[in-house]
């Protein structure tokens, strides 16, 4: 797009990315898209916890934010392997990479991440307050956990995109991606949970870990797609 008028190029790029975003959203809600699998998994984990931990309501409400975060993290990882693999299987990935020459491939990856987050992870964030009730959490804690999930889960998707891009050519890459990505998501988990606790437990701060969480998401929004684009460009065969 070099040499074109700046404003026109921006408008064009945003239109192109909007088309990709809408396509991926459509695919995630159509049959076989798997948008609901994450939510069902999330629900299953949270509903199981009280049976395992026992009916100690105080204990449940104390570990509630951590359990919600861990379950959401695992549910996020669940659908990641399809992020690029579905496109690779039908040949779309070739054209996405080919067109990455016209507009940055990293931008394409970022758009796919955002669509994946909206289609598969946002439902988790919406379901989190309801599931917080199972954990006997107080309203403030539920609100704080949902807010930290809203801000923190995009980071998991961005890291996951890099893992998904590396493992795109592997036929059973799903578990590998989870193992690759899990260590990298630990900081997100730590700051997400500590911000959620900060909102309810008095001496612990809320704002500082929350801001670090937001910074992590912004940082990974750049690094994740760039790394994934690099892996996709060199990983095609």
């Amino acid at each position, binding site marked *: 797009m*070099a*040499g*074109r008028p700046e404003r026109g190029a921006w408008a*064009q790029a945003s*239109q*192109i990315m909007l*088309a*990709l975003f*809408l*396509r991926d959203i*459509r*695919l995630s809600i*159509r*049959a*076989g*898209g798997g948008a609901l699998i994450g939510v069902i998994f999330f629900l299953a984990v949270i509903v199981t916890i009280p049976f395992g931990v026992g009916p100690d309501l105080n204990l449940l409400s104390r570990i509630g934010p951590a359990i919600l975060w861990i379950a959401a993290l695992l549910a996020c990882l669940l659908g990641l392997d399809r992020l690029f693999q579905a496109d690779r*299987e*039908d*040949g*779309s990935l*070739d*054209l996405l*990479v*080919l*067109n*990455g*020459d*016209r*507009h940055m491939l990293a931008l394409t990856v970022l758009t796919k991440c955002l669509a994946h987050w909206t289609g598969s992870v946002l439902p988790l964030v919406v379901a989190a307050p309801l599931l917080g009730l199972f954990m006997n959490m107080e309203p403030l804690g539920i609100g704080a956990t949902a807010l930290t999930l809203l801000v923190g889960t995009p980071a998991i998707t961005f890291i996951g995109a890099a893992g998904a891009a590396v493992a795109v050519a592997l036929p059973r890459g799903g578990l590998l991606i989870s193992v690759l990505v899990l260590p990298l998501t630990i900081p997100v988990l730590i700051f997400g949970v500590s911000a959620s606790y900060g909102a309810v437990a008095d001496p612990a701060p809320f704002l500082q870990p929350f801001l670090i969480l937001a910074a992590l998401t912004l940082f990974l929004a750049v690094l994740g797609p760039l790394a994934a684009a690099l892996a996709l460009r*060199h990983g*095609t*065969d």
Partner: protein
Amino acid sequence: MRLIAENLGGERGGETVFSNVGFTLDKGEALIVTGPNGAGKSTLLRIVAGLLPAAGGKVLVKGGGEAFPTVASASHYLGHLNAMKTALSVEENLGFWRAFQGEPGLDVEEALETVALGGLGHLPFGYLSTGQRRRASIAKLLVSRRPVWLLDEPTAGLDKASEEQFAGLMRGHLADGGIVVAATHLPLGLEGARELQMRVAG
């Protein structure tokens, strides 16, 4: 507009498939790549498109202007796979590629008429037969403009009439100053096309 490949070498899993392949195509020229299975026809096309790294040599376009500065930005690649989503309708698929690839060409409706799929645009892509899928995929070449068409077995699954129709499309593209590089076993019905014969290495 000119597509130049110099001393290209290709590898598959560390084994050299071919080396020192070169060609120069001016606008309006077509190159048919033939050869037995395993001779590296698909590998050559993917290297030309930039989807595989070349083991040696380089590919470049000259005179593409601002719109088509590089080979990747100037090329349509039609591979073995159709690059269409079975869950979306044909119209949605083509509409997406038209918006995503930029340089819009024919309308989705017109493109479907051209490949004789008019009136089927509302169907999910998964409902089409093999030949119809291929034709819908060929319509993808028409919805956005690219001077270079890289075609890998483009007529696989097409019936006689569709093959002729597709030959007509290619002739039209060449007459408009386009370039076609096609890997195939079957005659494509392009008169005056140059031929590159690949051999199995070793």
